[in-house]
């Protein structure tokens, strides 16, 4: 036990640990923010994994073709939305089961980018680091939060923007209402499935952007296995956070830290059990949900399709 505490202390007093954790967390946060909106509208969107992957691949192709990080990120965002369009139209227009569609998309997108990636072989590199003066000098967390490649800073726009959209605008009020009681929303004159589709599109945009950041801000080279379950972790972070944005972001930070241990610990000279660490996010999630799932109030209509006249 004492050993564990000293490990945690060592990690907690290392600058690079925070930087690594922030990098892992921010990819999750991009995806989780949009996923949060989709879940508030009533979709448990498991194709978020595919959205990130599509975003990463499109960003690679965009950068490969134009040499511009901005164009790459834009391509990634659009690609995320394209995956979202299939999910949204099939599950909330054609009434196909949302899990089935999501699962299929995960496999299809993996196949498509795996195939196209090996045929086209995009070459990329990471975007340059931009330090924000003064803030970067804050001890420990300064470099982690303000000394990152510039796409990292987009998270400071995306999160407040989505929070504002959901909590302060009419669109957000309607999104929340269709996730809670679609029948009531319908009677009030809201197009339930349209709002749900829109929220999935938004989820696709942020997840695609997250994929673009993952490639151009962090990894630098495309590989079909690049996402490695981050989408699922983002989805779980939303649930972990009890369907509040604050909680979801906290979940992302927590899981980001766990993921970063794999990079940080060897540098500090600790032997580690790689399998154990890889399983940690999943295990933490399962345990957390086993403890809290029955206590947290989820959106009433989460994962329930809405068809007018049917319950």
């Amino acid at each position: 036990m004492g050993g564990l505490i000293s490990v945690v202390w060592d990690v907690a007093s290392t600058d690079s640990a925070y930087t690594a954790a922030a990098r892992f967390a921010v990819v999750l946060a991009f995806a989780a923010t949009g996923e949060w909106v989709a879940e508030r509208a009533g979709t448990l969107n498991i194709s978020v994994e595919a959205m990130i992957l599509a975003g990463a691949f499109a960003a690679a192709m965009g950068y490969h073709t134009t040499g511009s990080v901005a164009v790459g990120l834009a391509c990634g965002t659009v690609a995320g939305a394209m995956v979202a369009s299939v999910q949204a139209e099939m599950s909330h227009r054609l009434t196909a089961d949302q899990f089935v569609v999501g699962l299929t998309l995960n496999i299809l997108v993996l196949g498509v980018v795996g195939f196209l990636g090996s045929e086209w072989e995009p070459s990329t590199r990471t975007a340059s680091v931009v330090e924000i003066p003064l803030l970067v000098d804050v001890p420990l967390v300064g470099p982690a939060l303000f000394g990152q490649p510039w796409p990292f800073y987009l998270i400071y726009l995306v999160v407040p923007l989505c929070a504002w959209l959901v909590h302060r605008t009419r669109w957000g009020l309607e999104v929340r209402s269709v996730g809670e009681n679609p029948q009531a929303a319908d009677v009030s004159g809201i197009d339930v499935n349209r709002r749900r589709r829109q929220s999935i599109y938004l989820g696709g945009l942020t997840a695609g952007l997250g994929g673009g950041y993952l490639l151009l801000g962090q990894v630098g080279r495309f590989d079909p296995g690049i996402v490695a379950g981050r989408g699922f972790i983002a989805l779980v972070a939303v649930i972990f956070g009890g369907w509040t944005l604050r909680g979801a972001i906290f979940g992302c930070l927590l899981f980001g830290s766990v993921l970063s241990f794999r990079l940080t610990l060897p540098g500090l000279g600790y032997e580690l059990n790689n399998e154990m660490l890889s399983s940690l996010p999943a295990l933490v999630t399962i345990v957390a949900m086993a403890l809290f799932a029955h206590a947290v109030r989820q959106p009433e209509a989460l994962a329930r399709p809405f068809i007018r006249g049917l319950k």
Partner: protein
Amino acid sequence: MSKRFGAVSACDAVDIEIHRGEIHGILGENGAGKSTLMKMLIGLVVPDSGSIFVDGASVRIADPVAAASLGIGMVHQHFSLVEALTVWENVALGDSGRLSQTGVRNAVGELSERYGLRIDPDARVADLPVGLRQRVEILKCLRREPDILIFDEPTSVLTPEESEDLFHSLRGVVEQEGRSVALVSHKLTEMLEVTDRVTIMRNGLVVDRYMTADADAGMLARAMVGRDVRLRSTEVSEAIPDMHAGDDGATPGVDGPVLEFRKIEVREPGGSMELDDLTFSLKPGEILGLAGVEGNGQRVIADLLSGLRRPSSGEILVDGVEVDVSQAGAALRAGIAVIPEDRHDSGIVLEMSVAENLMLSDQSGMATRGIINGAALAVAASDLIDRFSIMCTGPDALMWTLSGGNQQRVVLAREITADPAVLVAAQPTRGLDVGAIEYMTDQLRRVARSGVGILLISSELDEILELADRIVVIFMGQVTGEMARSEANREKIGRLMGGDLL
């Protein structure tokens, strides 16, 4: 201002005119087409043919938003508030334009002042009692400053006294502000008391129109039902208070109670009490009417007896033996049959066949060594289909292809043939047409005569007054009074429904 409907198949060639500054009653039994008509007015159902005129101009109403922009608003019976949101958020739902929290909250305050409908704009709807929820609904509707307000059976969630208040507010809306109100109801008294004119519907047709001042209960009743029948109107049921008094077969026997609730408490997951120290008993062959405003614990009682909920404390006894209803199927094995309030929710499996639904109460009887005996099942099901005149294409017909009345007959057939000691009938006639209602009430009487104790849970006071031998009134999960039918009258029960103790 006039509104006109041409030929519509759900409502057949219905013409209705609503004038400015009047309360227009639309009277009809369940299933007469009133609700469909109103849903067309606010754009939830699109008419197949016919046209609607507002202020003389022909309009198309495609959705509730279009209706709102024409000045038509509706206060719904169910399903239109989002419980997780606050009052002001609910009021704002369905508007367009920028969302301004302070604007909406001020408007709510101002409206509740103007109409005397006080409410806290920041309360979560989930925390409000049913009566206040309706208030939110009304405010939501009034905020759009509608010219025409539609009320769909507003009094089913109110005590008689609250209903009076509501109608008083409506008078104000109509007389001082020149708006129109369409009041949809199947209660004759309401029509006579508050409306200016009445349109009566039956089977999707307008059968009669009256100036309320020229009408009396008998005329309205005849028009509504279509013939002279014994009728569940106030006058009729008040006139025969002792209908059951001399009926020996139905008088409670000397045996002990067949069903007993002893100090039952049910707590919501949130902690509030749904049933509070509830005690009552039911004797064999007796029809016990459980009266109360909707949402005061009736649903919980039915759920307990269906084994869907468990009491936090207290005991339920059948034939003197305690039953642990938290065990799946224990209530059924103890001899409790249930006709549930919402049959789609807990009475039938829509996606399965009639035969498969009928065998639910006797699963192992239809199988040998775990294998379902298809031939025997088909024979048994066909027999029940004949005996209960269930209209369907056969035992293999899927449940959702049947009409509501026939689905209800399947439930009835299954529950009665299970040879129960107790039959719980929760709102057994809701949503049925007149013929089906008569069939249902006859069956309930017949079953009671055969010695089964019947617990009739109904929010229709008239239904209870007509059928019950004894009446228990509940309010907020507590018994507020108990009396024999012969001692009961509307005023007394009405007071108890509002929470006054005897």
